[in-house]
Structures are given as structure tokens and as C-alpha cells.
């Protein structure tokens, strides 16, 4: 039986919106595909051997937590770059996305170097970007639903976007795309357990993970998750139409 090892990085600092739900969803779906899953919850000062893992996850945190994490993760820059180049999976949600570009600039005009894995610069805003989001993902007919609540945006993004914006805000106000996609790096500002709430998208991800392990993919549908997804979308549409 194939094994996937997941590192949930900064699980205690970057878990502002129940993000450990994402790791639970990935685990659940992988197990349904008959894969053994091992999850390690890791945080600052922990010894982390990036070679040991197939998949890395980081969620959202407060600004205070973000800066603590940045101080720690920057020391692991070379190892992260190596893991990324080797095609390991990175699932990065919420403001953790701000860790992976060239720099992060605060409202006080302080600029911190970030991991420099991707091209963009992250800028703290003096306003919050809050709201329900509906996006689309290439080759997926079902939409992506989620929520954003943040005070940062991206500038000078060169990578391919992960999503197209249908309703809501892109990686910066007035942008029609959201998220970043490169090799096996998937990053989005969407917060919370997006893999729970988007079972169709999660299965697209499963397809890629299985392919990377040379395992053939047979679709799995979690009926409850799908029903929750459909009901939520129906509720949103009803609200929009004033019902």
C-alpha cells in the first residue's frame, strides 16, 4: 500500500480558521483512494526534514503569528526550494500565500524578505478584504466556494492563476484571477477548510497526487460533502435572488 506523508506546517500558529480541516479532508480522500496517510503537525523550532514528506500544508494566521512564522520559515528557505523543485506538493491557503513570494511589506512600510519561491510581492493593506467567493477552476464544471478575510494583496504576479473569479475578489482588488499555481504548488487566499467544502476540486487534486505516485485514479464522491456543497450554493443563489 502506497503511503503519503503530510507535514502540516505551523499547525498551531497558522490555524486561525479551522484550517486543520484541510489536512483532515486530504487524509480522508487519500484514504478513500486506498492510500496510507501519515500526518505530522510541526511548528517553529521543530526539526523538519523536508525530504521525508510528500505534501506540505500551511493555513492562515494573525499578523503576529505570520511574522513569527516568517522568522522561522526563512531559515528553511533552501530546503523548501529543493522540495518545490523536486515537485513535492504544497497546499498553501489564506495569508500563508504571502510567505512564498519575494517580499512582504507592512503598513508601516517595513519590508521583509520572504521565501522567493514565486515572483510576487505581498503588500499589507490598510483595509480588510472580506467576503464570500465563487471561483472556477480549469476543467472543472463545478464552482469553487470559499471565504476570504485578510489584509494583504499580491503585486506583480507572474505565475499562472489557480482560479478565475466569478464572484468576489481576486489576488488584489479588481483582479479577475485568484491564487497561484506552479509545478505542484497550489496557493490561494481562500481561508478555512476549502478541501472539505469543495469535494470536486479536492478530487481533481487527488488525481494529480495519485498520478505523481503512478497510481491509477478512480473517482470517489463523498455524498455528504457534495450535498453540503450544493446546498450552500443554492442558499447563496437564493439570497442573491432575494428569496
Amino acid at each position: 500500500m502506497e503511503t503519503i506523508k503530510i507535514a502540516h506546517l505551523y499547525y498551531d500558529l497558522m490555524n486561525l480558521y479551522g484550517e486543520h480541516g484541510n489536512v483532515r479532508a486530504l487524509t480522508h480522500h487519500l484514504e478513500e483512494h486506498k492510500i496510507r496517510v501519515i500526518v505530522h503537525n510541526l511548528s517553529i523550532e521543530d526539526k523538519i526534514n523536508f525530504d521525508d514528506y510528500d505534501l506540505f500544508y500551511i493555513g492562515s494566521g494573525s499578523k503576529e503569528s505570520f511574522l513569527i512564522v516568517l522568522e522561522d520559515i526563512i531559515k528553511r528557505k533552501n530546503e523548501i526550494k529543493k522540495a518545490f523543485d523536486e515537485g513535492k506538493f504544497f497546499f498553501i491557503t489564506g495569508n500563508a500565500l504571502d510567505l512564498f513570494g519575494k517580499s512582504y511589506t507592512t503598513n508601516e512600510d517595513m519590508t521583509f524578505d520572504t521565501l522567493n519561491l514565486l515572483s510576487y510581492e505581498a503588500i499589507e493593506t490598510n483595509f480588510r478584504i472580506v467576503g464570500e467567493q465563487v471561483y472556477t477552476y480549469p476543467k472543472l464544471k463545478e464552482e469553487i466556494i470559499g471565504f476570504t478575510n485578510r489584509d494583504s494583496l499580491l503585486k506583480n504576479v507572474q505565475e499562472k492563476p489557480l482560479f478565475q473569479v466569478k464572484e468576489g475578489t481576486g489576488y488584489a482588488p479588481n483582479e479577475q484571477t485568484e491564487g497561484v499555481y506552479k509545478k505542484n504548488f497550489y496557493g490561494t487566499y481562500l481561508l478555512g477548510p476549502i478541501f472539505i467544502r469543495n469535494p470536486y476540486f479536492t478530487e481533481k487534486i487527488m488525481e494529480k497526487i495519485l498520478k505523481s505516485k503512478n497510481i491509477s485514479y478512480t473517482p470517489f464522491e463523498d455524498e455528504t460533502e457534495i450535498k453540503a456543497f450544493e446546498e450552500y450554493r443554492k442558499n447563496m443563489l437564493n439570497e442573491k435572488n432575494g428569496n
Partner: protein
Amino acid sequence: MLRAFQILINKFLTLTCKIFGRNGSQFPGAISYNINQHILEKIKYPKYVIGVTGSSGKGTTTNFIYHILKDAGVDVVYNSSGSNGIRGITTLILNNCSIFGKFKHDVLLLELDEKHLHLAFGKNKMTHLVLTNITRDQPARNGSPDLIYDAIFNALDGTTTLILNADDPCLNKATLSYPGKIVTYGINKTKDSYNKKENFSVDNAYCPNCHKKLIYSYYHYGHIGSYYCPNCDFKRKTPDYVATKVNLENQTMLINKNEVHLNKNFLFTAYATVAAYALCQTIGIKEKDILHALNEDVIPSKRGHEYTIDNRKVTMLESKNENALSYYQSLKYIVNEKGKKVVILGFDNVSRRYKYNDLSWLWDVDFELLNDESIEKIILIGRFKWDVLVRLKYAKIKQNKIILIDDMNNLIPTVKEKTKGEIYTMVCFDMTEIIQKKIMEAEHGNN
């Protein structure tokens, strides 16, 4: 002149609301505040202006303080309606002023919204501020906990005496930098305290001073407990007012060695009691008067109407959405009660304040606690029942325990026909009202 005019308008509008049977706790203040945002700066305040704020427990704490002060014969007014924003506060203050702007009572006591502190007391400062806790709460409005902290402390300049919960490292952070006087309170280890290595729902796991991971000797809930930094001297020191031997079953505890009665068997009640005790003694209320108020003229426990379905007791536990600790309290309470149980859970809207329905907080709530054999059925209601069902599935709750209700008219018949034992509702205000209505209709034919 404008001040006198505004005070009169405020009183007139309040009276008008009363005549027409409307809740006039917000509207008059909203008008006054819109006419002049600086009106509250022009009031001659009494010797004691006491605020109570925090993510949860501020209403209960305010009620307890009011009870003790009133019992001790103090002339005090407070926002009993729970209107804790700038409009409600303006209404209350102006209604209790002479037309010359002098506040007419000896103590002004206010439950305050964290985000409205600077609006109400931008220039004039409170004499005392009680801080209950800072946790994740309504993030679409409040952002993250450190932003709530900033909102509170940006409104303070050191002239206000703080009475703060030392068990909360996020509040205790103030002891590092706040220039004014600080009185602390807290609760020592209880039999429900726990310790776990990987705690996901901690808001302040790291030392605010040197960023090392805090070490906890125990948690009461969330990030509230006893902690220390392994690297510097930041820690929970023994609080000035400390509750020990908390016995929720007997509803007793000791505060600085005096036995004190708890009016309910919640840990939250113990916090509110020790906070009220600390504040009252700080402003000079005699210990014997405080103990008399708590132990003799006990605080009435607000039970309201007792509901039953087929003679089965219904316990309604208000659970605030987007506040995992509020849910945790309800869950813990239900599990600790004796007998077989059915739990009703769900919501139509995440918030009353905004239209967003972010559901991520469901994953912060310890629904795993429902995996208790005393809980025989769980009934899910409301528009988001499927999302709650997914959460319960991940909590590994057996699917045959769960019933989904599509039509609220079927709720009571389902409870009657398909469940046994005592009934617990764990929902927010709006749903509580709907359920109460359904019970009244079913039990008394009151349509």
C-alpha cells in the same frame, strides 16, 4: 446648548419608543450620535465609570457586578438590555444626565463592544475596565484576536485601572506594556482542566515578549489556563484574586479563601464571579458586602421560561456562532449532565450583524465531544445542516444517531416520536426564539 438639546431629544425619543412599545435602547442614541459624535465627551461623569469588555462573558460579568453594587446600596446604572455598542451607550448615558450634562448616578457601569471602546471613550477615559478574554470571535467583523487587542488598547492611555483575566495570555500581555494600574484574577486548576500536546485552537500559543512557544501546565479551555515562557519571565503569575476549589456540581468555590456560591454550574460563571469580585473590591466595596451579595442575596439565575416537551425538560444553551469557546462551553455542559440526551443543533445565518456565512469556525469547535454514549440522538436544523453534518461525520459520530430536519414544523413531532431523554438545544439567539415558538405551539396549541 447643543448638549442640553441632545439630552432632551434623547429622552424624548426614548419615551416615544416606550409609548409605542418599541425597544428604545439603540435608536435615540443613534440619532444623538449622528448629530454630534463628540456628545459623550461633554458629559460630567461620576467618580466611577466602569467598562466590561472581551470576546465572551462580558454580559454575565456586567450583570454580576451590577448585582453586587446594587446589593451593597450603590447608586448604579448599566446597560441591562445588552446594547453594548456606541448607540446603546449613548442612549443610556444621555438618559441618565441632567440637562446640564451631569451624570445623575454614582456609578456608570457598561458592557462594551470591544470595537466601540474608542468611540465611547476616545477622550474621556473609564476609571476601571474589566477584561474577560480575547478569542476568535466574529472574524468577518473583528479580524483576528491581535486586532481585537489593539482595538481595546488603542482606546486606553494608562489612566484606567484594568481588572484582567491572567489566565488568558493574550490579555496578560498587557502587563508587559500597559503603563497604568493592573489588578488580575484567575482560576486555579479544576478537575475539568486538561493538558494536551497538540492544541489546534490556540490563539496565543507563543510568548508575546520573545516568541517562544508557551508551555501550559493545564488548560481550562482554548488558550485559557496556566502557562509560562521557557525563555523569559512572561507567565501567569498567581492572580490577585484567585478562585480555587471550583466545584461546579455543588456550585461553590473559594475566592482568596472565602467560600462563594456560583449561581450556575458553568466555568464561565466562575470567571464572571471572580471578575466581579475583583472589580468590586478594587473600587472599595467591603468584602463582607460582596460575600453577602453572592452568598445570601444570590444572583438570580436567569432561567426564563422553563420549556418541556411531553414532560421532558428542555435546556436551551445559547451558543454563539463563530465563537468556538461558546460552543465548547455548551458541549461540555451537555456531556457533564446526567441521563440520556438528545441535542438540537444548527443555524439559518452565521451572524445577525452581517450577511456573510463563513463556516470555517465549525472546524474550530470540538464537536468530537458529542461522541458520548449519553447522547443518543443529534438533530440538525437550519440552512447549513449539511455543513454541520459533514463536520459531525469527520468527528466520527455514528450516522444513525443523526436526524436532519428539513421543515421546522417537523421538529417537535420528531423529538417526540424518535427521541428519548432530556432535550438540549445548542443554538444561537434567533434559532432559540424559533424553537421556543414551536414548543409553545406544540405544547399549548398556541398559534
